[in-house]
């Protein structure tokens, strides 16, 4: 089950559409599971890793994947080889990911790009790596063409995610 938890107010209709897209992509249920508060003392741009660890009040079952959705900007990560633009963050094989819709105001104005990013982060939760196919949602998200693509997976990534989901269910 994918649980979308909002850290800021969002339109319910847009969230329902967003959940339908996630359901179509992964074949598992997706729902809006309420909202949570950003921990006090954290200012924009938010540190994605810290926020994910510190956010409280999220209820989920063992195999659930939680996607935190915010309108606030996330801080770019300093990595040994350079700076990684961060529109979202997810640890491989874990149960929690975070995604921002910034610089867009709401889901509607950038629905395709946001859902593509959501698929990317949720894909990491199901242990998918970055893909070579520019049409796939697992393509590195900082490339210029990423936001223009559809929220879909390539055959390889789709089959791998389906396999991981099947293993998690059994």
């Amino acid at each position, binding site marked *: 089950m994918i649980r979308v938890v909002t850290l800021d107010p969002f339109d319910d209709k847009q969230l329902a559409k967003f959940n339908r897209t996630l359901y179509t992509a992964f074949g598992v249920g997706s729902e809006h599971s309420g909202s949570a508060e950003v921990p006090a003392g954290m200012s924009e741009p938010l540190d994605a890793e810290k926020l994910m660890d510190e956010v409280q009040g999220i209820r989920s079952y063992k195999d659930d994947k939680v996607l935190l959705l915010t309108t606030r900007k996330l801080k770019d990560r300093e990595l040994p*080889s350079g700076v990684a633009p961060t529109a979202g963050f997810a*640890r491989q094989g874990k149960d929690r990911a975070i995604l921002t819709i910034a610089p867009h105001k709401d889901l509607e104005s950038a629905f395709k790009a946001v859902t593509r990013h959501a698929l990317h982060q949720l894909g990491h939760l199901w242990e998918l*790596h970055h893909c*070579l196919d*520019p049409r796939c949602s697992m393509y590195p998200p*900082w*490339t210029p*063409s990423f936001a223009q693509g559809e929220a879909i997976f390539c055959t*390889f990534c789709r089959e*791998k995610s389906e396999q991981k989901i099947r293993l998690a269910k059994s």
Partner: protein
Amino acid sequence: MPEGSASLQLAVGDRVVYPNQGVCRVSAIDVKEVAGQKLTFVTMRREEDGAVVMVPEGKVLSIGVRKVASAEDVEAIFSFLRSDSDKADLDWKQRARTNLDRMTQGGIMGLAEVVKGLQVLSELRPLPTKERELYDNARHLLVTEVAAALGTAEVNAEDAIDIVLFPPGRERPKRTAAEFQREDGDLDLDSDLLGLDSDLDLPSDEEPSEPSEEESSEEGESEEAESSEEGAPKKRGRPPKAKTEAPEGAEPAAPKKRGRPPKPKPEATAEGAEPAAPKKRGRPPKPKPPEAEGAAPAAPKKRGRPPKVKPPEGES
């Protein structure tokens, strides 16, 4: 011999890399008796999923177990991945062999070479399924080792690698087969790179088969033709076949058909002779027994047990 394994002294708690398996932690080194022999076993537990493997101490080096790469090694990996390498082996057999060696014996640099090589190749054409799987495995092993070496999360290690491979704000270049041309002029192209996939009706995700003799001879012809046209700009795809000049008045030759040539038809023995009946397939019919003229046709053979013989009347 894998790099960095010349003097491998293992102790409990060490992090090592088991080729093709990933980062493991040595959980025990103990002596066990197997078939009357006392052997020292190194027990390793894979960090990813906790799978346990026991290896005799004497086999550790030959298997290719090595220590986790250092931060300096990772820096070397980044600079290698950053380099604008366009070297990719276009011979799939050679490539498969080299990649297998790199995965098992090449150390972390071998993994990086596999990832880089297949990424460069994917800029020319989509990878076949097997190579896509190999790419994913190599990437997974590289990411886990870089994460272990830098002491960071896997996702950060992967992003660090991909920032180098896919620099932000830049699209990947599209490559052509001509870019992979060797310096000696030998293209060493596979049939699929020459655009023969559609002709051969090969599934795109299968390994291409070796070009047949017919094709190789055709290629030989085309190479000869190419050599005669020096200085002309090279075109992509299969070069046009050299046209043989037909004598004037002669009919143009029929286009050469591909595939197995048809079997030669047997010539008729004499003019006006009836053509032979087409050969029937399957088991030939049983020969019928010769029947006497005027004799009644034999009753059909009954199946089952024969009827009991009735005793002659008058006997008691």
